[in-house]
């Protein structure tokens, strides 16, 4: 409930947990479950800490993360590898957007 409230706020105000993690400089992917995206040019994306695939087409991939969805749009997109830890997407990436 609190999360929904925060997501609909107009100005960003970190939660207590986020503030503690931020001040102690702890890894956010472990403490907050944030996804990590590593992008090589517009050809490759490595994603860790994702929950699953919601939709997959040649032009767009929709992934479920802990705090929302990640939408990757482009052309000739292929999931080159898919495992419990990491996903590698290849193709011509045009946009990456986050849906809360």
């Amino acid at each position, binding site marked *: 409930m609190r999360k929904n409230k925060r997501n609909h706020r107009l100005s960003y105000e970190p939660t207590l947990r986020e503030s503690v993690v931020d001040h102690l400089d702890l890894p956010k992917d472990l403490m907050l479950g944030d996804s990590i995206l590593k992008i090589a040019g517009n050809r490759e994306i490595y994603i860790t800490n994702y*929950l*699953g695939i919601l939709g*997959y087409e040649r032009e767009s991939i929709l992934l479920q993360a802990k705090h929302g969805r990640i939408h990757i749009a482009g052309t000739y997109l*292929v*999931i080159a*590898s*898919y495992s419990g830890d990491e996903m590698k997407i290849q193709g011509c990436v045009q946009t990456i957007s986050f849906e809360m």
Partner: protein
Amino acid sequence: MLFSSFWNYMRGYVKVELTGAATERFLTLCRKRQIALWNLTPEACGYSFCVAKADFFLFAPLVRKSRTRVRVVKRCGVPFLAHRYRKRKIFLCGLILFGVVLYELSCFLWHIEIRGNSYLSEEVILDFLSEENASFGQRLGAIDCESLEETFRNAYPEVIWVSIQLYGTKMTVELQENLLLPAANEPLPDVLYTDLVASCDGVITDIITRSGTPLVKAGDEVSAGQILVSGCISILDDEEQLKETMYVRADADITAEMILPYVDYISGEIVQDVRTGQEKTTRSLTFLEQELFDPFFQTSYELYEVYADTVQARLSSNFYLPVFYTKKTYYELQRTSHIATADEIRAIAAKNLGKHLADLEEKGVQITEKHVMIEKMDSDYIAQGSITVRGTIAIEANGKTEGTDDILDDTQARGA
């Protein structure tokens, strides 16, 4: 990437087509069960992906849960190949035999690389290695590089540094030779002292003595064998009486003008082997000492020259095999002969003389004059004359200066 592809091929994988209502749920279940998929692509009615053979058998509960269907489209990898060719026992035996032969061949020395030699020829070094049982075809385990290096240095004192290394089936011999002349005061073995004597007749033009007593000066005419610098140094006292005699190794730079005779016989008939343009090529394969050649190849040429180009087979830069591929090209020749004209004789004489002068210059002498005449002798010709050169005349010789025999006798007596 390459390694993972190779690993997947070795353990075997299948290409699967996934269809059904909740294909995304199936993928999520795969992620939760830590099943790795690759080349996941969307298809018209679902997805297709590759999965390891072992992981494919874990799909049954996931398919039930997600109400999807999987269909194997393609089987790839070694386990499937092995199953497909399980009845070809001779092929399997051949494969095993090939592996064993390859392993056995990797235990021997099949290639030797020599670097850094200038005075010592490759043949000399290869002969030495052959005598030391470290040559082509020797078992690698029997070669001790360190002791070989030590033996090499002892056998060739002019080599100041040598490194012998084995890389795969290749041996590298790297060496450094002492290109400088031995130091003047370095004692010669079994020689008490040395003189410098003239190597041939000539006129001294310049003399700089570093050690010993000079017996000639610039402008003197000397004959072959004459002592130029004696290794015997007489030390006089204040009354110019002989106080002491020292014996050293004579060392000096002595330049002289020398007249060298030149004779060159030229045949009056010029015989030439000219290529007719006809050529034949054959290829052969040599394994160890056995040559496999084309049995139908024949050279019908009476006179020919052969050019051979040999390449040694290797699996990597250091894994050489005793297999040689040789390409031989036979060129047909036609022998023609005719009586040489005066111009041709002159050209041949000039060419031979030029080569002779170039050889002399390579030895470090300076040519000042040359007088060569061509004379006819029956049907042949003779080019003869003299070449005046300026260069080093002195050569080292064991001490012969008068009075030294007594000293030698004294030294031997003292030693006894």
